[in-house]
């Protein structure tokens, strides 16, 4: 019996490690995608787009492992919470990887257009903030660190503010004739993609807190977010 439990916990650790790796890939791909977008590096963008297939396969494979463990081991208490949280976090990570792919696809559509410096600066800032949030989420999950996970929500306010500033800067650049309409639309979508990545990082933080503490955050924002778990995320694919 002990041997079976040992194998089960070994499997749980393995699943945990695999999800940390997938999440770390997203942490890496956020600045990579941004650099491809801002430098007009279509080859770099293509590499990220093509690598997404493997990301999807690994994510689905991991999800299946979780379902198999739940079915065969019938985990209880913290083990069950860990597996349920992991299943939810997998989809947040996989979705975030898709959003980075969308940013890379946008680099094809704006290719050859010189972006307004203010817009470039705000894109860089949003990328840095989204990456920070995702890095915190990944590290918090890796270390099962609930306080670190709780900090992600506060960080997201900054990203939301930058999102608004970027939209404003896009409007202004378009009005000043420095940004064609189709590029302005693409950049507004890109802004939305970063903002959504931040939201996914916050969701991961919520799941980590549930996994570690056995409860969701009690603040209003957490409750609103919890309510939104049930509704469609509003992510856009392109």
């Amino acid at each position, binding site marked *: 019996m002990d041997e079976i439990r040992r194998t089960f916990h070994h499997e749980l650790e393995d699943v945990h490690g695999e999800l940390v790796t997938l999440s770390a890939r997203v942490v890496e791909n956020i*600045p990579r995608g941004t650099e491809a977008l801002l*430098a007009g590096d279509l080859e770099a963008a293509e590499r990220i787009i093509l690598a997404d297939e493997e990301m999807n396969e690994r994510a689905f494979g991991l999800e299946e492992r979780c379902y198999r463990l739940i079915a065969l081991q019938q985990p209880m208490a913290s083990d069950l919470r860990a597996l349920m949280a992991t299943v939810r976090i997998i989809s947040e990570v996989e979705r975030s990887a898709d959003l980075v792919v969308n940013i890379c696809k946008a680099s094809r559509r704006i290719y050859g257009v010189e972006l307004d410096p203010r817009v470039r600066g705000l894109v*860089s800032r949003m990328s840095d903030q989204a990456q920070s949030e995702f890095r915190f989420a990944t*590290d918090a999950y890796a*270390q099962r660190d609930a306080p670190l996970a709780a900090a992600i929500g506060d960080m997201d306010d900054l990203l939301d503010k930058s999102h608004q500033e970027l939209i404003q800067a896009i409007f202004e650049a378009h009005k000043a004739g420095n940004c064609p309409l189709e590029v302005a639309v693409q950049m507004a979508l890109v802004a939305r993609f970063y903002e959504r990545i931040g939201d996914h990082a916050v969701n991961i933080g919520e799941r980590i807190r549930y996994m570690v503490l056995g409860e969701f955050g009690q603040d209003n924002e957490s409750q609103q977010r919890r309510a939104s778990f049930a509704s469609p995320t509003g992510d856009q694919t392109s």
Partner: protein
Amino acid sequence: MWAIAIGALVVGLVAGGIIAVVAVNRATERAETARRMVLRSEQAVVDASDRVELLRHALDALPQGVVITDERGAVVLRNAAAASFLGVPHADALVGDAVAELLAAALKGRTEQRLLDLYGPPRRSIEVLAAPYPLGGERNGAVVEVDDVTEKVRLEAVRTDFIANISHELKTPVGALALLAETLSDEPDPELVQRLAEKMVAEAHRVNRIIEDLLELSRIEAGEHPVRQPVAVGLIVAEAVDRIRHVGDARGISIHVEEPSRRLVVMGDRRQLVSAVANLLDNACKYSDPGAAVEVDAHTDGQWVELEVADHGIGIPSRDLNRVFERFYRVDRARSRETGGTGLGLAIVRHVVSNHGGSVSVSSEEGVGSTFTLRLPAGPGPVAVTTREAG
């Protein structure tokens, strides 16, 4: 008859006794041999264990991560560096993923190598090398080495770009001069001749500026121990502003100097420090939008003096931030040609502050502006300098 029988018995007993004694002696010898063998084996085990410990300590002392597995891929030894190579969970996970993948290849008998370019922050380049090692017969284990080659990769990029950039910077004006002179020699139209001659003068000045900057850089590099005397920061700034004011005026850019609350002093070579600050101001004026302001501020914590030059210009992309202090490194080649820079200004700044035991850093956001910060050792105290020295 009885005597014979008793005699035979005695002889038998004696012989038996002798045989028994010999047998006991042999048994004792064998036991002793066995005991010595056991001791030797124990010693061998202790020695082997000591050697394993020694090997482990030696591997733990390496900055490179080392992982050794048996033929089934089970980890036999993992040194301290490999346990947490980068000390950051998400980065370690990516390194671990590459290690696992390459280990699998090595167990199949292949030697494989991979360079991981991690965006960080901080940005790191990690090399992972996996190779099989024989275990006898068809069997093999695998060993992986993980090495941080960030500095090596950076230096390689600097070296390749430097050669490409220096040939571009020097060949462009020289090539232009040759072409202009060739056109000029057959040109009868005096108006065109005048225009071409003006262009030639501009290109000649450009070459001259590059040569002057190269000489300045080599002078600073040669003087590793510059003159160290107390110099008022206010004087350095005032002289640098004077030198650059015409650049700012030409573009309607004002230079605001924030007066420090008390007189700040640094130890160093005034001429070199003025050159460094003037280079920063020159850059700030050239990369600001017309009509914008450039701000200069200085403060101290008692040990260091920090002098900041901030502009509200186009800013520097984050991927170029770490490289702007390299010689001839260009963020935007087209624009830098318009501004007439030589590509050596920031390299001069870095060398000056480095010679003074200080450092220079930059923070920037595109579309917002850049702030360059010089950090220099603070001087012994206020100096009463009221007039500018000649120089």
